[in-house]
């Protein structure tokens, strides 16, 4: 598959944006600039970025608790994302959502969900709207290997299949749900093997390889837009950091092997993409480094933006409950 240079560079930029955003989040979180849980996406950047690069702004995504990568991959703004983590009025959700609930309705980001599996039927619903109206957009639901065990997944995949909806089920299989390993909790070798139970194609993809993710997702998007129905894609990946920065950080006893972590760290998705781009003459080392540096800069500005944004006022507590407001009880 021939991929546009612009797309390849956009992918690299977004991956660096996520990486540098997450590094910054870890830094300011541990400095106590804000609290609350935050789940770093470091190591998994290629999955969301490769997948979202196959989408248009008019396509929809939903996500989960590991929630910074998806919106940035879809083209979301890091300043509004960072301000949201800081709980400020200029955040995506005016400080009401926080890390786990980023959303940008202007570019099809329908929102991250802290309840796992829960946002998958919602993505199916957006696709249902396309189906009913004859619109050409598609929707994509991100979920983890752990969440793949939720009943919501089964119901969603079945529904999407019988109604032939333009939806992509995108499993980020990082092989652990907090401290519990894939093998202990998922009764099938690969999540993507479950596709056959729903008469849809299942694709197992190297989640460290943005290009592979992009190609697989593009194929699925093409099928969806052509009215050929849903696809299940599994990006096999690994989270390089701890499960979360806030709650649930401290687990008693190691649950991942140091050697395993080291092994996976060798397959850093940014290295892999940069090496390809450089070896294929698409970008130079300097260009890659410049992209990295630019995103560092942008994240820095975003952080300043967040710090300077005010906290909401007490009366804001009662705003945004209703589209057609009703009196407080």
């Amino acid at each position, binding site marked *: 598959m021939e991929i546009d240079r612009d797309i390849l560079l956009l992918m690299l930029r977004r991956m660096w944006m996520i990486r540098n955003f997450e590094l910054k989040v870890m830094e300011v979180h541990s400095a106590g600039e804000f609290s609350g849980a935050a789940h770093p996406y470091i190591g998994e950047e290629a999955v969301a970025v490769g997948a979202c690069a196959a989408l248009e702004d008019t396509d929809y995504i939903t996500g989960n608790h590991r929630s910074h990568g998806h919106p940035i991959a879809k083209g979301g703004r890091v300043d509004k994302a960072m301000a949201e983590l800081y709980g400020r009025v200029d955040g995506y959700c005016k400080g009401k959502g926080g890390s786990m609930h980023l959303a940008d309705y202007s570019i099809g980001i329908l929102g991250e969900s802290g309840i796992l599996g829960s946002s998958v*039927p*919602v993505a199916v619903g957006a696709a249902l709207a396309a189906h009913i109206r004859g619109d050409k957009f598609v929707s994509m639901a991100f979920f983890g290997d752990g969440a793949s065990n939720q009943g919501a997944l089964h119901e*969603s995949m079945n529904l999407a299949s019988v109604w032939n909806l333009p939806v992509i089920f995108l499993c980020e299989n990082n092989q652990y749900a907090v401290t519990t390993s894939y093998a202990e909790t998922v009764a099938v070798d690969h999540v993507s093997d479950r596709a056959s139970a729903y008469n849809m194609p299942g694709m197992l993809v190297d989640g460290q390889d943005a290009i592979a993710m992009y190609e697989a997702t593009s194929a699925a998007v093409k099928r969806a837009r052509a009215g050929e129905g849903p696809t299940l894609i599994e990006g096999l990946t690994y989270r390089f950091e701890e499960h979360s920065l806030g709650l649930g950080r401290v687990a008693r006893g190691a649950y991942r092997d140091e050697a395993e972590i080291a092994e996976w760290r060798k397959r850093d998705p940014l290295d892999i993409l940069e090496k390809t781009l450089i070896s294929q003459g698409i970008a130079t080392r300097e260009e890659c480094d410049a992209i990295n540096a630019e995103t560092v800069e942008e994240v820095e500005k975003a952080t300043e933006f967040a710090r300077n944004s005010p906290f909401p006022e007490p009366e804001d507590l009662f705003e945004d409950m*209703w*589209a057609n407001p009703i009196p407080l009880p």
Partner: protein
Amino acid sequence: MAQTVFLEAINQAIQEEMRRDESVFILGEDIRRAIYGATADLLSEFGEKRVLDTPLSENGFFGAAIGASLVGMRPVVETLTSFMWVAMDQLISQAAKMRYMFGGQATLPVVFRASMFYGAGSAAHHSDRSYPMFMNMPGIKIIVPSNPADMKGLLKTAIRDDDPTIVFEDGTLFGMRGEVPDNSELPGEELLVPFGEARTVREGTDCTIVAIGGAVNHSIAAADQLAAEGISVEVIDPRTLVPLDKKSILESVEKTGRLVIADPAHKVCSAASEIASIVSEEGFWSLQAPIQKVASEQVHIPYTPSLEKHVYPDAPKIIAAVRRTLES
């Protein structure tokens, strides 16, 4: 005005709104062949894309309705209250919370029509009257119509409202006949009942009964019987529980000094509890007697009619409660 059966009023509301607005569509189990009656003949008029029979997976298709509503559709879901347990996560985590959580970005004009089939031997698994639970959770508007006209007018309002709504359709009323104005008789040519406006079903001076859903008719019967003894009862039907028209309730209690609340839900943490707590706080000085809750006994719904008939509020229980307020 036409005499219309409750179920037919539901059907009219859906049909009119589907005609008016292309983004309205309906989905649920066996709705094409209308096994519960309300969706009769909609398939032939609106076709398979707007009348969708779903697989038996409420959490999945409730979520699909929610998702469709986020991107501009106006889904109307048919279900039973008792099937909402399996879909609770979509109702709470998504429908109720999304808008606030995303700082107002999400708009969810989705309607859930939930039948309450109590009182007819449906037993514990099919007899839920769960609106109080949803009142506890902010984010969903809650409607409990007590007659065909309100059913039609409130459902139409719900479909047009931009917030998620659950319409609790009281199965004991499905066969009830009542006057429903033809649209031609109406000024705006539409029957639209606003949310948050209680209806004074009957005026009176000695005691207020606030009655919900199927308990409204029982309260009218109770008021009739008491009227024969010279006791003048005011009956108020809140019609919507979220928003709740507490002003009308407080004004009535100010006039009568006495309050009975008749609520088919389980008694503990019921709508009746909530209304009692509001009046004991904001209408305390009007009260001349203890508030009386007449709600369902705190047991599950037994199958056998010999037991089930003792569970719910009925006219004799309401009359006894009114008398207790007057004895004080």
